[in-house]
């Protein structure tokens, strides 16, 4: 058994102990775990919902696929201390992160000073976040490592906004398109967000496929995952030549094009009421410090769904609720992660467009 495999095996064994709290040993570190039988997703699974223990088990099982996607990325988390039906809040900074957690000091214009961000590079950190009720993981689209495609970019992130803007953290790996259907089933309560339903999801898949074909016609390959809730996240991996301002402009341009092509289906509107009946194409997440829920990240959905990467040719056959804390580890084991090579599939957008000889 590999070292990683052994570590996972050991954690799973320890979690088997039917006690509500314990001190978990991972490598040379210890992590106190509490309230293991607390139900976080009351509506999920066949018996009595998914508990914190289920979450820890899930994260341990998927960690070999999940951790590579979080590597080197400052992140924040959405904490649901009382489960998905309770209150939630973002946590960006940690005063006393545990010894095993990697942190990076970044200038924050909001705090007008330097702050420590967590980087989730190991299983212990992942489980620490779960222990804190941090169900949703939001890694930045940029990361602190410069190799191989941002060689020579600065690694000084603190001191001033100028330092941060000049640094590699200002150069995202992806242009992201967030497709969020505002197609109501009619069963929602007053003022509620649209619920997940077949028709809306199919329509969103259909739009995603057209966007993929559109980009393919330019020679660009884009990746898709379920958001874990009602929509889809599309990631276009790019060589880090453009900063966030540029990636947002690129996403906005694609969005405006989509709006022009399919005005009856797409909306870029800010006002929620004007999005009704359409799919909201959100390009605004392409911004330093912003993020979408990570790949394989558990979501606030009653059934305990996670954000699942999918192959384009599978899109017709899947439904977001197929992918839960329960089902995903097995699916990954069987089929692997379609996004595994996303960072090797980076595309030089500038070069591609130039070679096409567009105006």
């Amino acid at each position: 058994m590999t070292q990683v495999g052994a570590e996972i095996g050991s954690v799973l064994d320890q979690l088997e102990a039917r006690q509500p709290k314990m001190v978990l040993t991972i490598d040379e570190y210890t992590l106190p775990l509490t309230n293991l039988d607390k139900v976080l997703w009351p509506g999920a699974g066949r018996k009595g919902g998914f508990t914190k223990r289920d979450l820890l088990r899930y994260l341990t099982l998927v960690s070999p696929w999940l951790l590579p996607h979080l590597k080197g990325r400052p992140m924040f988390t959405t904490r649901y201390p009382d489960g998905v039906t309770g209150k939630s809040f973002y946590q960006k900074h940690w005063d006393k992160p545990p010894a095993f957690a990697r942190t990076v000091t970044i200038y924050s214009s909001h705090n007008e000073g330097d702050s420590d961000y967590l980087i989730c590079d190991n299983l212990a950190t992942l489980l620490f976040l779960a222990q804190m009720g941090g169900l949703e993981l939001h890694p930045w689209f940029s990361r602190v490592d410069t190799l191989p495609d941002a060689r020579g970019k600065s690694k000084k992130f603190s001191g001033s906004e100028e330092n941060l803007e000049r640094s590699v953290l200002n150069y995202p790996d992806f242009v992201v398109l967030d497709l969020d259907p505002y197609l109501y089933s009619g069963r929602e309560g007053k003022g509620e967000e649209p619920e997940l339903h077949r028709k809306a999801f199919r329509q969103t898949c259909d739009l995603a496929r057209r966007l993929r074909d559109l980009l393919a016609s330019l020679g660009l390959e884009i990746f898709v995952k379920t958001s874990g809730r009602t929509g889809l996240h599309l990631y276009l991996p790019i060589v880090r030549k453009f900063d966030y301002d540029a990636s947002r402009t690129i996403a906005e341009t694609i969005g405006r094009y989509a709006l022009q092509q399919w005005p009856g289906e797409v909306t870029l509107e800010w006002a929620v009421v004007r999005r009704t009946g359409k799919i909201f194409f959100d390009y605004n997440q392409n911004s330093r410090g912003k993020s979408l829920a990570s790949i394989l990240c558990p979501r606030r959905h009653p059934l305990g769904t996670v954000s699942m990467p999918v192959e384009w040719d599978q899109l017709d056959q899947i439904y977001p609720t197929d992918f839960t804390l329960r089902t995903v580890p097995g699916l990954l084991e069987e089929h692997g992660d379609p996004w595994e090579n996303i960072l090797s599939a980076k595309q030089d957008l500038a070069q591609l467009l130039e070679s096409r000889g567009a105006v």
Partner: protein
Amino acid sequence: MARAIWSGSISFGMVSIPVKLYGATESKDISFNLLHATCGTRLQQRRWCPTDEVEVPWNETARGYEYARGQYVVLTEEDFERLPLPSKHTIELSAFVEEKEIDPVFYERSYYLEPADRAEKPYALLLKALEQRGLTAVATITIRKKEQLCAIRAHDGTIMLETLYYPDEIRTERGMNLSNVKVSDRELEMAFTLIDIFRKPFDPGEYHDHYREALAELIEAKLEGKEVVQAPAARSTRVLDLADALKRSVEAAKKDQAKPKPPARARSRSRTTRRTRTAG
């Protein structure tokens, strides 16, 4: 044609043209009635006097102006009748100006003016004169007891009347202060690029009230007990080349990086200003 909402005459100098006024626009907002949720009965509004604890009939009502809290001066119908309203049945033209001299903020509502019986000739004459000179007349009209400023202009073979706000009805106080915000050439360049991509002639036919359409559909669907159906997408006839658009935005972005960025301090100051305003 709808019923005229006003009739009188346009008067300037020695000329008088009998006309009728029709609303040129209509709001198509879908309106709802307030019901009692438990039994579905439409609610009634009643004029209720909390002192006498009685419902008050119209003929026992009066209009009061609150000059201090709880203190009213009462105006009767006779008081209103006595008010000087010189343009009661006339549209008094006082000046001719260029249309572009009137800022759109002044425009309130649009009406069509049509000639009354046997007034076609002078009406056509005024229309032609306005058309050929390309001028707009400023006038006053009294509609529903209120003397209003208005503009009279030729549009598509008709004389139109647009009521205007008086200058003291236009709010001038503004909360923002942009003097600290620095916009760099590169940012402006990116903005120009986006503007150029979406530049096209104004075609009002392209725009719809999607909210109202969705609402109407929802009502229809509820009536039929069906699920809400999505309207088929209208495909835009104007196809823009995505490669071209992307290339332009990418180029603007590249230029961006070649140019030195404005000092971070200046930008964070502008950010601070914004934040303070939000907080306040």
